[in-house]
C-alpha cells in the first residue's frame, strides 16, 4: 500500500488514471452497446430457444415437466430466469443424479452453448433474472471492504467467514464458495438455488452483489493469502484444536520420549 500511495504522486499518474478511465468507459460501452443488436436478432434467439427445448426434453423434462411446469420430482421453472439455469447447469447441480437432502455440485456435462440454449428456453417460459454480464460481477469498481461487511451480514451465517461452507438442518449444507466462478456466485444470490434464499436487487443492490463477489475474490480464491501459514481449512477453533493436539502436543510428547529414553548402551562384550 505504501508503494501505491507513493506512486500516486508520480508525474505520469494522471496520465495512467486518464487512460484507465478511457479504457473502462470503452469497455462498459462495449458491454452494454450490443444489447439492442441482440434484441434485433430475433431469429438467433428463437433458434436458441428451439434448441434449448430439445435439450430440455432430454435432460430436464422427466422431473420438471415437459413444459417446465414442474412435477412431484422437481419445482416449476416458470419465471426462474436464465440465471437460475446458468447456475444450476453450469455448476453441474442439474440435471440431478438422485434425490437427497440436497443436490450436490458436480462436473458440468453441457457445453457453454448448450447451457445458453437451455437458459434461453427456460427464460422464454416466464420473466426472471437474466444471466449477469461480466461487468456486473467483475472486481472493477467494487469496494472490497464494504463487500466484506455485506458478506458477514448476509452470507457468513451459512457460508462461514471466508466462504468455506457450513451445516444446515437435517443433512443440508451451505457449500464452500472456494473456486466457484464469480458469475455463479452472482447468479446464486439473484436466484436463491435450493434452500438458499434469494437476494434480489431489492435486498442487495447490484453494487452490493458486486462488492460481495469482489470480497470473495480477495479472500477466498486460490491466490488469496493466508499470512499466518496453513489455513487449516479456514474453519476456526475445531481444526485449530485438533492441530494443536496432534502436532503441537504430539511433537512435544515425541520430543519428551527422546529426552527421557535411555541412551543406547555399549554392547556387552
Amino acid at each position, binding site marked *: 500500500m505504501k508503494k501505491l500511495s507513493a506512486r500516486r504522486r508520480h508525474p505520469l499518474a494522471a496520465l495512467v488514471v486518464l487512460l484507465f478511465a478511457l479504457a473502462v468507459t470503452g469497455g462498459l460501452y462495449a458491454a452494454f452497446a450490443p444489447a439492442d443488436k441482440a434484441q434485433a436478432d430475433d431469429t438467433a434467439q428463437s433458434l436458441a430457444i428451439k434448441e434449448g427445448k430439445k435439450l430440455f426434453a432430454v435432460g430436464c423434462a422427466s422431473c420438471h415437466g415437459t413444459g417446465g411446469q414442474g412435477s412431484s420430482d422437481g419445482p416449476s421453472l416458470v419465471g426462474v430466469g436464465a440465471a437460475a439455469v446458468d447456475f444450476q447447469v453450469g455448476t453441474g447441480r442439474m440435471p440431478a443424479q438422485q434425490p437427497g437432502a440436497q443436490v450436490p455440485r458436480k462436473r458440468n456435462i453441457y457445453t457453454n452453448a448448450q447451457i445458453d440454449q437451455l437458459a434461453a428456453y427456460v427464460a422464454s417460459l416466464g420473466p426472471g433474472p437474466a444471466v449477469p454480464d461480466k461487468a456486473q460481477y467483475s472486481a472493477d469498481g467494487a469496494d472490497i471492504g464494504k463487500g466484506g461487511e455485506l458478506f458477514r451480514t448476509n452470507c*457468513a451465517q451459512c457460508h462461514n467467514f471466508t466462504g468455506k461452507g457450513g451445516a444446515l438442518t437435517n443433512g443440508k449444507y451451505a457449500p464452500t464458495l472456494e473456486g466457484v466462478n464469480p458469475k455463479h456466485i452472482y447468479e446464486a444470490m439473484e436466484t436463491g438455488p435450493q434452500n438458499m434464499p434469494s437476494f434480489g436487487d431489492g435486498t442487495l443492490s447490484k453494487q452490493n452483489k458486486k462488492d460481495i463477489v469482489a470480497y470473495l475474490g480477495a479472500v477466498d480464491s486460490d491466490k488469496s493469502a493466508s499470512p499466518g501459514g496453513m489455513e487449516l481449512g479456514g474453519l*476456526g477453533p475445531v481444526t485449530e484444536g485438533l492441530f494443536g493436539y496432534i502436532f503441537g502436543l504430539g511433537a512435544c510428547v515425541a520430543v519428551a520420549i527422546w*529426552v527421557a529414553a535411555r541412551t543406547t548402551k555399549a554392547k556387552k562384550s
Partner: protein
Amino acid sequence: MSNETTATTARRGQAPRGERIADWADGRLGIYSLAKANMRKIFPDHWSFMLGEVALYSFIIIILTGVYLTLFFHPSMAEVTYHGSYVPMHGIKMTQAFESTLHISFDVRGGLLIRQIHHWAALVFLAAMMVHMMRVFFTGAFRKPREVNWLFGFLLFVLGMFTGFTGYSLPDDLLSGTGVRFIEGVILAMPLIGSYLQMFIFGGEFPGHDIIPRFFTIHVLLLPGIMLGLLVAHLILVIYHKHTQFPGAGKTNNNVVGMPLLPVYMAKAGGFFFLVFGVIAVIAAVASINPVWAIGPYRPDQVSTGAQPDWYMGFAEGLVRVMPGWEWNFWGHTINFGVLIPILVFPLVLVAIAVYPFVESWVRGDKREHHILDRPRNVPTRTAFGVAWLVAYFVMLIGGGNDLWATHFHLSINSITWFVRIAFFVGPVLAFIATKRICLGLQRRDKDKVLHGRESGIIKRLPHGEFIEVHEPLNQEQLHFLTQHEQPEPVELGPEVDENGVRRKLKRSQKLRAKLSKGYYGEDNVIPKPTVEEYKEITSGHGHH
C-alpha cells in the same frame, strides 16, 4: 568436586569469585541449606512425567509473548474506521481492540508470529494440562500425600480455561464476540440475579464499552496472577514430595530412583523448555491460528457458521448445543433451562474428577503414603471410571463441533445432536464396562505370564508328535514387576448383630462404602495375583504344559 574446589582455594589464597558471591547470598538467603537438599535431588526418567513440564513451559511462553503483545494491544472498545495495511478491511468500523490486533498482525514486524505463538502455546498449555492430569489419574499419582497437589493442578486447569477464554475474546472479532454474547445469555439465564449481573458485568446493555477492558484486566492480571501462585505451590509440592515412580526392580515406596537435578535434569529440563518453545515457534511459522482479519470485527447482528470456542471450552459448548429447549414460565418469571442445566452440568463433571482422590481413599480406607505408581490395569474400577469420564468429555467435544462433523462426514446435524444426547449417558456406561473387562483380561494375562512364562513364539515338536509352544520363564525383575502391586481386601461391614445379639446400627454411608469397596476390590473385580506357592508348584519339576 570438593577436592577440586579446595585445591583452587589454596592456590589463589582466596575463595573463587563464584564462591564468594554464593557466600554473600548464603549469609542472607541461606542458599547452601536449600541447595544441600535440592541440588542433587533425584528425578525419575519417564516421558509421561514430562507432560507437566510441557504445560509449565508453554505457560512461560504464554507469559513472555503475552507481555510483548500488551505493548501494542489497546484494550478499548472505542470505535474507529480502519485504514491500515489489510485492504479487505478498509473503511470498516471496528473497535480499537480489533484494530490494534490487525496492527499487530500486519504492521508490527514479527507481531503476527508472537500472536500466533501466544495462541498456539495456549492451546498446547491446556492440552498438556489435560493429558498430564490423565497421566496422574490413571497411574494413581494423586494418592496420599499428593491430593492437595492434584487440587492445585485441577484449579490451574480450570483457571487456564477461563484465562484462555478471556484472551480469545480480547481481539473483539466476530467469532469471539459471538462467544461473549453467549456469556451474556448465560448470565441472563441465572435465576433472580441474572439481569442485574449482566448490567454490572457489561457496564450496561450488551455489548457496551466495558467488557473488553474488563476482560483484559482479568486476562493479563487477575487470573495469571492466581495461576502463577498456584503454579509455584504446585512445583514446591512436587519437589517436597519427591516424584512418584513406576514399579520396577530396586524401586520401592521408600526411595526414588533416577538421575540428579544437577547436572542431568538441569540440562534435560532446561533443554526441554527450549525444545517446547522451538516446536511451538515452528508451528506458529507454518500454521495460521485465529486469523481475525478473515473473521472480521464484531457486530451483534452478524455471525458466521462454525461458531465454536477454543477446544477447552468445546465441552461446555457441546453441553449447550445438545440440551433440549426447556423453559419454565411461572408467576411472571422465566427459567431458561436450555442454558441453565448445561452450565450447571459443566462444573459438576469437572468437580467429579477433582474430588475423585478423596472418594477413592475413603472407599479404600487407606491412610498410607503412596509413591509407587499403579499400572492402570491393576485398579480396574478407577481406570474404568477415568475412561468413562473421558468418553463423556469427548462425546461433548463432538457435540460442540456437530456442525463441522456434519459437513465433513456428510451427516445430519440433527442426527449428530441426537447421537450425542444418547451417547453422553450410554457411552460412559459402556466404556466403564468395557474398560473394566479389558483391565481384568490384562490382569489374567499377567498372571499367566508369571506362572507359565512368556510365549516365545518357538514351536517345538515333542517325540510323540505333539506340537507345543516353548514358554520362556520370566526373570526375577519381570516377576517382581508383575506381582508387586497390592490387592486390598474390600471393606467388611462385619456381622449384622454384635456378640450380645443386638442388631448393630449401620450408617448409610458405611453401607455405601462397603458396596463401593466391593466394586473396587471384591471378587469379581480383581484377578487374584499369583502366589509364591502357586508359582513354585508349577515351576518345580512338572515343567510347563
